[in-house]
């Protein structure tokens, strides 16, 4: 039996004028704890003003290759009775190592994920697209403006230090080389 909690994809917005972009994932028993885990794992130090979490099962995903092969248009007919609802559209627009984020590009109103994809291709299809993610708006738990101070405020006035700030490795090496017994860290200098 799989005892792992469900996976939630995390979208982080660094500044109000920037889009939400996928920053990683967390496991959580439900959306509220996923949102909290996302805060603790991804935004304790860096700048952030809004977080979204989405259960991985609610993400409809297409790659450039799968779109060419068969986007699954025929499956659309099954759910066409539904009333239109908002879908959020995300797109991976670059393969460059520093920019491989799946980024929010906008919203469409559709009755099925495939219909949402069709609209997304029409509205946001210009430029490169390596991956498309289509997410029903109701599947997203979003941090609220009222959460911002306790969620994101504390990180702002804390210094963010990389591990090498503490120079532990260098100091241990110096300690080992100046030890008259000639020992390394295991050599009794502790």
């Amino acid at each position, binding site marked *: 039996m799989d005892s792992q*909690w469900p996976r939630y994809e995390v979208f982080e917005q660094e500044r109000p004028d920037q889009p939400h972009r996928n920053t990683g994932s*967390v*496991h*959580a*028993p*439900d959306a*509220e*704890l996923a949102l*909290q*885990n996302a*805060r*603790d*794992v991804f935004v*304790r130090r860096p700048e952030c003003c809004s977080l979204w979490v989405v259960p991985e099962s609610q993400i409809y995903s297409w790659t450039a290759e799968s779109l060419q092969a068969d986007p699954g248009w025929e499956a659309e007919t099954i759910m066409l009775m539904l009333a239109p609802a908002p879908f959020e559209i995300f797109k991976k627009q670059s393969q460059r190592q520093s920019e491989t984020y799946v980024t929010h590009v906008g919203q469409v109103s559709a009755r099925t994920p495939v219909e949402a994809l069709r609209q997304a291709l029409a509205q946001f299809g210009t430029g490169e697209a390596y991956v498309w993610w289509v997410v029903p708006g109701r599947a997203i738990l979003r941090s609220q403006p009222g959460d911002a*101070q*306790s*969620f994101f*405020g*504390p990180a702002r006035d804390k210094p963010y230090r990389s591990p090498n700030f503490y120079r532990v490795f260098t100091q241990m090496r110096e*300690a080992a080389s100046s030890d008259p017994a000639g020992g390394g860290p295991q050599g009794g*200098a502790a």
Partner: protein
Amino acid sequence: MTQPALSAQLLALADDELILGHRDSEWTGHAPILEEDIAFANIAQDEIGHASLWYGLLRDLDGHDPDRLVFFREPAEYRNVQMVELPRGDWAFSMLRQYLFDAAEAQRLPLLAADGYRPLAETAAKILTEEIYHLRHTQAWIERLAQGTQESHRRVQAALDLLWPYALQLFQPLPGEAKLAPRQIVPEAGVVRQAWLQAVVPFLSGVGLAVPEPAEPAAASREAHTPHLADLLADMQSVARLEGPEVRW
């Protein structure tokens, strides 16, 4: 003369945060899931950071060096409540202890932030933002443990039965407090206790836990400690107290 009374308040605030933060940190690497390991390590670090702020105010007030206070005091000189020195127990125990403490902070800090000694008020306001997040996190966990499985409910109820009288010690007046309260430097302990009860009793009952009857606090004075504090300090202070020619900083 209010300064000794104010020092006593700051030392109590600082020692509670330090010892709780240390106990929380014992979960680092041992929490039930990676994400929660990170979350609870964050909380532990926040609490130790808060302790550092309070010790800093104390140094400004009476010149005590925070490092000496933390690493070279004997157990009997610590002024934390007994609740925070108890061993970490199981996950339900640690979460509930953190919740009961956070809920007290959520009541005490806004009153301190509104009160008459400016450095204390400013520090309280700063700490409060983080405590609001801690409270949201621990409330979410208590709700899920209480309403999860029979086993999780049994464990969190057992933790509540054990911790209740310990939590009440948080609201015992400190020496000299009567001098500070009329000048609005600290809130009256009875007022904080009442506000805390009005917040935690409905929440705990609401998630299906049986709230224990009113009880005497586990200890009347913060000068009394369990043997667990000595064990904790022996560990925490061991590196700072190393002596001999081989010790270099």
